[in-house]
């Protein structure tokens, strides 16, 4: 086998290679002696709370935001941050006679990452508010964020999901944005998540929008004790998912093809969405986590010529979807119970090369892991994976399957926060923070700790104690969104926690110091569509032989109301070398980024597969 000494050499995408890596770290399965996440909020200059507009009321509308988006809006190679902002609830604005959609006191914030060097030479994220400079003037009550380069110009664009009309912001590529909201997004609703994906195979990214419920204010609900409490989704009318077809990227070139695509019935109180190819047919499917109702697995049936229509609002390419979640085994828990799905992720947790599904749920239910067995067939293996019992006390929202300790196996990060006072109080009994009287600020009682579940192999996870996960993750808060990405360019996956009643929290990953890894991303200026369809497969060498490849898929969607770093990282644990690095599903070439400490491979479309130069 060929062994590469310097890290700057170009590598072949398909040839078998051996890469000399850094000194192997200690075994990842052992409990880390230092926390795997530390609080980097202050160092990064993050401050400023989300304004939920609750005003002391038990209002569901006010406790579901926000998400967050990590993306490189200015093309300088590092991750910037967008934070949706709430403000006055739309129902309050209407009640006070203000103009719907008019100026409000709060706006989403765009924070540019100006990496700075520490004394030891490592880089640190430092966020600077550039919202005004970037001309990003969001106006609605922000809940969710989604990112994609929908027009293929190489600059990632931003969708802000609101209580009310959504907003699509086109990235001009010069560090500024312009409003580009198409008509189908200008209708009032409650967008809780979105995923950009090429559903019709035409090379551009279409938009799948998940909506929650009709945002009716002042609905009253009660706990079993008869005490007033927050309502659940059953107290509201569910909204249907939506599909917008991208016909060229301009604001007028989006068509709402939801009905023709077959995704409007039944409606469902959706909160999480992730694109995945559930049946390995090469078409994009969508898994949608519904809150208190069966989840959806919208399987892409492809085009049906008989369904063609020449109307502007029709579905000219005839792509249709069918919900096959029940037979697939992902609609319900194994007992047949609809769970309160919140956040989602899709990744290979058992190392068999296909994508499994993870859903965060309500307190008393536990999170759900659906392990894929064969095409479009999954099994609920949550309990067997050791994830059910430890997650039952908590209400999970944002989530991500990431290799926190870079040992080669995907771990699970979940951030929590209750949605009913009774859950929050019960959970706090264990955590013992001071209780706040309901009439003061009820949402403060919803605080719950976040968790790291370490993948210990054999399809099992173990809840990491706070000493391992880190106090910063374990601290109770009303967490909602979770956006993951390498904000300090050190190869591990950091996490941004968006908090409902407070400021965001940046969790910096601290894997074992000598942990080896290989990452990959798209070359600067490359459009999203071709990159998001790829798979990175890294085959580490261990004990003299290659082990099963680590398969990582670039994606921006998943979690709850958030957008993640589209780069992928494969931790290599104690492997000293890799036998192969393969980029599946595309031509183009990979090359090392120079100089160190960057160890990402960059993929540029075009050219041959066989090698390249830095």
């Amino acid at each position: 086998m060929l062994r590469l000494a310097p890290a700057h050499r170009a590598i072949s995408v398909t040839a078998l290679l051996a890469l000399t890596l850094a000194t192997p770290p200690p075994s990842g399965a052992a409990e880390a002696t230092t926390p795997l996440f530390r609080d980097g909020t202050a160092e990064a200059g993050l401050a400023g709370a989300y304004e939920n507009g609750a005003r002391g009321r038990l209002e569901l509308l006010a406790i579901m935001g926000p998400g967050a988006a990590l993306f490189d809006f200015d093309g300088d190679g590092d991750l910037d941050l967008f934070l949706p902002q709430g403000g006055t609830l739309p129902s309050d604005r209407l009640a006070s006679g203000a103009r719907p959609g008019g100026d409000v006191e709060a706006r989403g914030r765009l924070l540019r990452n100006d990496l700075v060097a520490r004394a030891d030479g490592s880089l640190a994220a430092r966020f600077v508010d550039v919202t005004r400079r970037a001309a990003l003037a969001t106006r609605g009550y922000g809940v969710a964020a989604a990112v994609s380069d929908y027009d293929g110009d190489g600059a990632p664009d931003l969708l802000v999901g609101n209580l009310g009309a959504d907003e699509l912001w086109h990235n001009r590529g010069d560090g500024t944005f312009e409003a580009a909201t198409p008509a189908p997004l200008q209708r009032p609703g409650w967008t809780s998540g979105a995923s950009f994906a090429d559903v019709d195979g035409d090379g551009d990214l279409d938009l799948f929008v998940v909506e929650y419920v009709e945002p009716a204010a002042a609905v009253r609900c009660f706990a079993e004790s008869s005490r007033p409490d927050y309502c659940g989704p059953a107290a509201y009318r569910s909204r249907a998912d939506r599909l917008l077809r991208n016909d060229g990227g301009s604001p007028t070139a989006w068509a709402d093809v939801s009905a023709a695509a077959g995704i409007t019935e039944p409606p469902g109180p959706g909160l999480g969405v992730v694109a995945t190819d559930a049946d390995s047919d090469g078409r994009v499917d969508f898994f949608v986590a519904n809150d208190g109702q069966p989840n959806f697995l919208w399987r892409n049936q492809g085009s049906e010529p008989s369904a063609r229509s020449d109307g502007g609002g029709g579905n000219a390419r005839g792509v249709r979807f069918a919900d096959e979640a029940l037979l697939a085994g992902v609609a319900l828990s194994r007992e047949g119970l609809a769970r309160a799905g919140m956040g989602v992720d899709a990744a290979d947790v058992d190392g068999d090369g296909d994508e499994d599904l993870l859903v965060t749920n309500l307190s008393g239910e536990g999170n759900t892991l659906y392990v894929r067995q064969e095409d479009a067939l999954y099994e609920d293996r949550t309990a067997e994976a050791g994830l059910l019992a430890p997650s039952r006390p908590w209400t999970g929202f944002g989530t991500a399957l990431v290799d926190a300790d870079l040992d080669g196996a995907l771990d699970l990060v979940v951030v929590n926060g209750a949605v009913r006072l009774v859950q929050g109080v019960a959970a706090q009994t264990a955590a013992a923070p001071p209780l706040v009287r309901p009439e003061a600020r009820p949402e403060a009682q919803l605080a719950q700790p976040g968790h790291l579940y370490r993948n210990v192999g054999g399809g099992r996870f173990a809840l990491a104690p706070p000493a391992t996960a880190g106090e910063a993750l374990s601290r109770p808060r009303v967490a909602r969104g979770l956006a993951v990405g390498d904000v300090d360019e050190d190869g591990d996956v950091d996490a941004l926690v968006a908090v409902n009643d407070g400021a965001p929290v940046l969790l910096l990953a601290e894997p074992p110091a000598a942990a080896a890894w290989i990452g990959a991303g798209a070359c600067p200026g490359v459009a999203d569509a071709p990159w998001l369809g790829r798979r990175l497969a890294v085959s580490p060498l261990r004990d003299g032989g290659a082990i099963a490849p680590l398969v990582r898929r670039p994606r921006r969607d998943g979690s709850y109301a958030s957008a993640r770093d589209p780069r992928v990282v494969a931790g290599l644990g104690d492997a000293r070398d890799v036998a192969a690095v393969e980029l599946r599903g595309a031509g183009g070439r990979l090359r090392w980024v120079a100089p160190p400490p960057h160890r990402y491979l960059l993929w540029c479309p075009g050219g041959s597969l066989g090698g390249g130069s830095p």
Partner: protein
Amino acid sequence: MRVGAPRTTVCARARAGRRRTAFAAVALVLALAQAFAATSEATPATAPAPPPPAPDLVGLEPAVATQLADARAELVSLLADTGADAGTRAAAWGALGQLYHAYGLHEAAKPCYWEASRLAGSELRWPYLFGQAARASNDLAAAKAAFGETLARGAYEPAEVAVAELALAEGDAGEAAAAATRALELVPGEPAALAALGQARLSQRDFAGAAAALEDALAGLPQADRLHYPLALAYRGLGRTERAREELAKVGKTGARARDPFLEELDAARQGELAPLLRARRAAAAGDWNAAVVELRRAVAADPTSARARVDLGAALANSGDPAGARAEFEAALVREPGNATARFDLGVLLLGAGDAAGALPHLEAAVALRPGDAEAQRSLGDALLALGRPADALAPFRAAVAAAERDEGARFGEAVALVRTGNLAAARERLEEAQRLMPEQGRLTHLLARLLATASDPTLRDGARAVDLATRVWSAQATPDHGRTLALALAEAGRCAEASAVARSLAAQVSAAEKDALESAAALWAKGPPCRPAAAESPTP
């Protein structure tokens, strides 16, 4: 007020099982104590009793708060009586625990159960209920220890089922299967135990074993329709996909629960109408209307003067397929509370749904007068007026409904129909265009607009090309004969006569004889070529 003292004997069935050794009992008591200590204020067995927990009663309904405060005061008073024996004190502690438990105050219930369990060392009710409270508060380790303690004191099949369910949550299918098997030894054929056994087999990927257990469970309790889901998974695992699909079509929301006298006692711990009312509303939210009816009958029995209980019972009866019973309850509620807007609305909607628009009208008018901002009431009043042939009168309530809820599809549809029927076709088109912009996904509105654009008696309002576009969308979404007819009419209006004729002919095979003749004659007419515009006599309202 004195809380009813719980029984100190266990049911005969619970006595029937084997007893564990004294050594095991001691070990489990210690485990229970340890688990309890991890979650609350542990009390060593020899220590004096702590004061009864006093949960925050702020915000509770006054009747509930009073009930809880009185019950606690009763216990405090009893504890002050140095003459009370351990059995009496245990019963009093347990009773307070049951009351807290019944109202979902699990953290307050657990110390009460613990103290009762400590004082009555052979009683299995208290550790069992401690386990249920711990499970409800997601303290699974404490629950497991408590159920173990229960079984150490005596056999109780629901505790074995609970142990099986906890083992399943921990991924221990072997222990789950063993506990379920023990439960089945106590009560052969118990559906809840069979369901747990089926789950254990699924966990072990023993699909044949899972199917057998779940089939048996359903045979014993057919109404446990939730079990069709794991059964479908079992058949899917066996490669019997079609059988799996059949089972999936039967999946409901009712699970299998073991008969559990101890948990049933909790219901008795609650007083008045509120508890069953709350339970009924939970059941209704889960779609289990039959269970809701049972609970609401209890609520009515507890307080026959309660209008809200009767209104809820009426709604549950209506949803469970008993409209006569529903009407009786609504009318009874209105006798007690004539100004109950919900009763007026529900009764009006019930009568309207039964075709009695005249009977519904006064109730819906009263509902609207009581709640002018209630979009559903306004819409229903409009529907009643339309049904009575009074479209001009229906316009106002439909418009009020749209003003209250601009995305109320039914109200917008009704308003457009009323406008058409009063001859205001231009206004109907304008309102439908507005609705179409707001809710393009609503097929009924799109269909009505398409029909109007194709057949309006005023030719200036017609737009064949747009009608074809809209009609094609609704036809593509749902290929019903009515949508097809509209598509044909639209094609004819657009001058696409041959296509219109072809669509009409294809539809003729799917409709009744009377419609068939009309479609075939239209097809023949259109086949002759342009102009082939539909006659104005064709109704714009589908």
